[in-house]
């Protein structure tokens, strides 16, 4: 059975557009494919595409952990940031 996660450079992350968690739409995190060698900026673009958000607007990405929330720097490779398979993320309008 084909599986994206068989490649050790591959992971799935679960972003949610923060705005729809605070209005009546109330849609939760969705699954998005990513690679450990992506930069924070590339990861943000993948999330914006998956959510079909307005590309003219600016967003930032935040990693959600049980004990903390971490802003994802655009220039760093996500493996170095410590992002893991299954991580929930928030897309926040700037």
């Amino acid at each position, binding site marked *: 059975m*084909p599986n994206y996660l068989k490649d050790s450079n591959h992971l*799935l992350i679960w972003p949610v557009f923060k705005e729809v968690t605070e209005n009546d*739409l109330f849609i*939760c995190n969705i*699954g998005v494919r990513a690679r450990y060698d992506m930069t924070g900026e590339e990861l943000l673009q993948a999330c914006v595409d*998956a959510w079909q958000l307005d590309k003219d607007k600016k967003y930032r990405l935040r990693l959600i952990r049980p004990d903390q929330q971490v802003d994802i720097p655009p220039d760093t490779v996500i493996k170095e940031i410590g992002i893991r398979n299954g991580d929930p993320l928030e897309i926040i309008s700037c």
Partner: protein
Amino acid sequence: MAARMGLKQKYHAMTRDLMWDSQEFDMKRVYPLIEKEGIILKDPSRWEDPFRMAYNQYVKVQAEKDLLYHAVRNAFEANEGHAKVVDARWYEGVKAFAIAVQPAEYQAHRLMAYIGRNIPIEAIRFATINQCLDELRHAQIEIKHYAHMSKKIDGLHAYAQTNENLWFNTVTKSFFEDALSAGPFEALVAIAFSFEYVFTNILFLPFATSAAAVGDDNFVAVGKSVQSDESRHMALGMSALKMLLEEDDRNVPIIQRWLDKWYWRAYRIFSVVATLIDYYPRIRPISWKRAFKTYVEDQVFEGLFKDFRKYGIRLPLHAEDSIKEKEHYSHAVMRILNHAKHVNAFRGFRLHPDDYEWLSSEYPDTFERYYAPFFRRMDDHVLAVATPGIPAICTVCQIPLEFPDPDNPTRFWTQYSEYNNKTYMTCSPGCKHIFEQEPHKYAQIWWPAEAYVSGEFGENLPDDLFKYFGFAPEEANEYYSSRDYERWLQYRKQLGLDQIFTGR
């Protein structure tokens, strides 16, 4: 002539005297699970099943029930019953029932066999073997019901495949797999008590009342036939629980832990039932909120749990959360179903003015304020509320993570846990607690959302999933814009049921 035996003696003669202890083998090897859960038994033979059902009587009673059900079903099918319901969106709810409940009945029969095999107490054995047969009977009469429905209605024609593969159904499957992979006493508390005693009443009694109100006599008969066995199942759950509590004080904390877990587990699996009561029927005799108050708060919390105080048993840990959630439950779950209705075997639907009116009057504090704006978004475009991708689900109950915090209904209730260098999400404090008691168990779940996004069933999502689910995209989505609704209107027209006669 010998004196005729009374009910009690007859039952004893036909159950108690049939067991024997193995001469050749160590009893611990014959019953390898009996001591594994820490439950201590001193003299369980004094335990009695109040129903005292012997096999000959069981067969006689059950045969009568089946004959009665099939007579109603035949009449309903022959008399075009499907055309006569007040609004056929009801059948979308019956489909949810078909996909969630029938496999649960089947799994419950396996579970009862497992319990009976592993607990060598005669009365429990006899009650579980009866219930095992009951559950198979329920599974079969329900399948018969859906076989006819599938002639008229989309979404059920590859029934076994859809049951096996549809994302929605992993909710039910994970519940029963959780119980089947627990020890036999925990499984007994899970099913006989939490599932049967606390919640099945809400499933079959108010839902059957709704069926009668909308004119689905066939479903009324299914519901009544199934429910007629439930008193016996409830008796097993209650008596078994009482026995375990009375056998030894050391059992009490173990039982409390299981009640904490399985109350919430069973409560979550019944979430879709809240929509079957509040949303799918166009005429509603009762609301989820009132049904929950009657069957859970009054009968279980105020009644049974007060009796259990003397053993040191308190209410399940998250009982209060479920009481608070009753104002939100059906609306939040209907919202989830509408997010994903384009990939589900039972459809969501636009609400009518009378729906808004009923929901507002029944839920004056929550519906208009927090939920009506969501449903109104669908007035212009039925997919205006669709999720843009494959939603994340709760690691425990497997429902998408879209439950609002009842204390703060515009905020998600989603919880996060760290285990083995991974973040796990759960839908609520109740599910988080269950996860954190046994993270090694829940970390092993097969996560459908992850498998879909990983491309196990094709690269083109969600379109490629339909082949795997066993139905076509046009069998999903919104009811009043569907081909099923058109067909139902045509069907009524052919029978002259579209005419309205009023006045003298």
